[in-house]
């Protein structure tokens, strides 16, 4: 199954929290309790993407379905035109994976 970010957002920018939630909801609509089929998140026509968007979409999917399922079934695609996409995507993943390890650093940043 392919889900087009551009079709959901009707915009070339995937920047806001709401945009990320819209993608998250669309993915959720297409799966039941567990992810059983591959889902491609298609970024064709998207020019910019923010960390905030990735946290509200992929971050929430990771929290709900777990790392193994998301890694196996949900894949971003056609994002080469988006500056720093993979850096942001990897950071989002790393922050999720090491949430408790990085807690002290987060608290220090917020202090």
């Amino acid at each position, binding site marked *: 199954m392919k889900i087009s970010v551009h079709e959901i957002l009707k915009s070339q920018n995937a*920047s806001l929290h709401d945009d990320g939630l819209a993608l998250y909801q669309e993915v959720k609509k297409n799966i039941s309790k567990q992810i059983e089929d591959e889902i491609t998140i298609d970024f064709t026509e998207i020019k910019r993407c*923010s960390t905030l968007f990735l946290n509200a979409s992929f*971050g929430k999917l990771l929290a709900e379905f777990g790392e193994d399922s998301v890694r196996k079934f949900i894949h971003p695609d056609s994002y080469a035109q988006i500056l720093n996409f993979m850096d942001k995507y990897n950071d989002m993943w790393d922050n999720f994976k090491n949430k408790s390890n990085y807690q002290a650093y987060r608290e220090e940043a917020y202090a």
Partner: protein
Amino acid sequence: MDIFYLQHNPVPKEKSLYVFDSNVWLPLLGLESEEISDRYSEFFSKVMKTPGCKILLCPIQLSEILNRLLRYHAKIAYDKKYSNVKGQKPNPSEFYKGEYRSSEDFKKKYATILDDIDQYSEGLKFCDIQTNDFATLTTFKGSALDFNDNYLYLLAKEYDATIITHDGDFHDLDIRVGTYNKKLYQAYKDSVKPIAAPKPQA
């Protein structure tokens, strides 16, 4: 002083100006805090989508945000490199200046933070306060503000903007404040309650 509670789902008025406190900027730029991230992110989306609304961003705040985020990433990089190293190694501060700032990771992180901020540039107004009076800059209005908080207060005051913050220190100020911090909101509500009239004597 006027504090409104973001839990009440307020809609930003067109052409309103806001100052987002640095602790609110951090989750918007990827440093999530479970307690507050989604709530302020929702309001940020509303502001960005409301015609004419702008979030003010001054150089001192931009510097603070960049430093906090980059030092967060530096600590992670330090751990990855040195957590298993025994014997001689730099301390985190030496690592930041001596190694991290010239690393590829620093360049990538810096570029991604700037790219994120730039994506919101239509809804941002880069500006600064006009005052350069030493006493104004260093005399804090609120009971518990620090220099940077006071600077944001002065910015909001000068532009008639609303501060969006989770920081309980932003009370007793003559500006509008929006928050999800229940304690801050409750303290404000308690402060504006009318004093109960004395009971009539029998």
